């Protein structure tokens, strides 16, 4: 009895850890294929009309995607892409691009 209870509890713990593991840059990279034609493979865009995403703050990137999805921020290209993203997709994409090198930096 005690053993089965322990099994159930440990199973629940594993499941909750998986659910709470937070954004995944790896999953974000998989999802980022459609972003690459404008923002570059690693978020360092070469066309100056498209912002560099590499090294940008993760929560700013997530906010931008959330605002494009809700229509708060309007852009014909980004609105289309963001419309199909889940909250997890947005968190994963932000985690991926924020971790890329040679991008934007703090300047004052």
């Amino acid at each position, binding site marked *: 009895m005690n053993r089965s209870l322990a099994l159930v509890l440990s199973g629940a713990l594993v499941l909750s850890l998986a659910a709470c593991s937070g954004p995944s840059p790896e999953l974000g990279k998989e999802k980022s294929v459609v972003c690459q034609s404008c923002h570059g493979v690693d978020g360092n865009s070469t066309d100056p009309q498209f912002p*560099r995403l590499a*090294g940008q*703050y*993760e929560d700013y990137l997530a906010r931008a995607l959330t605002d494009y999805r809700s229509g708060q921020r*309007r852009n014909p290209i980004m609105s289309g892409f963001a419309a199909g993203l889940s909250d997890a997709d947005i968190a994963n994409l932000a985690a991926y691009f*924020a971790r890329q090198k040679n991008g*934007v*930096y703090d300047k004052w």
Partner: protein
Amino acid sequence: MQTLLRSIALVLALGYVATAHSAGDPAAGARKNGMCQGCHGIPGYRHVYPDYRVPRLGGQHAQYIVNALQEYKSKARSNTTMQAIAADLSDQDMQDLAAYYSAKPAKAAVAPAGGTKP
């Protein structure tokens, strides 16, 4: 013929001057960025509501920065603080600020990737 050549030269010279004028001057941008620094000059500075960090601008493309400022000025892009600041910027101000912020970092001055919270 001489007159034609002179006219062409004049047009080219004027074109050059116009181009030179529209290009941003990073030194002028550095003098104009006082209003930007209060938020963008503080690493990890947070926008209060909704809560997120204001974007890093160093190394961003100049054209994107100019476009963003113009969108704030025209109110096509929403953010009351940025709209108020952009409202007072001329096209030349925007070009100068963009030239200042878009410059690549001096070596060894690259901030760490933004994946971790400060």
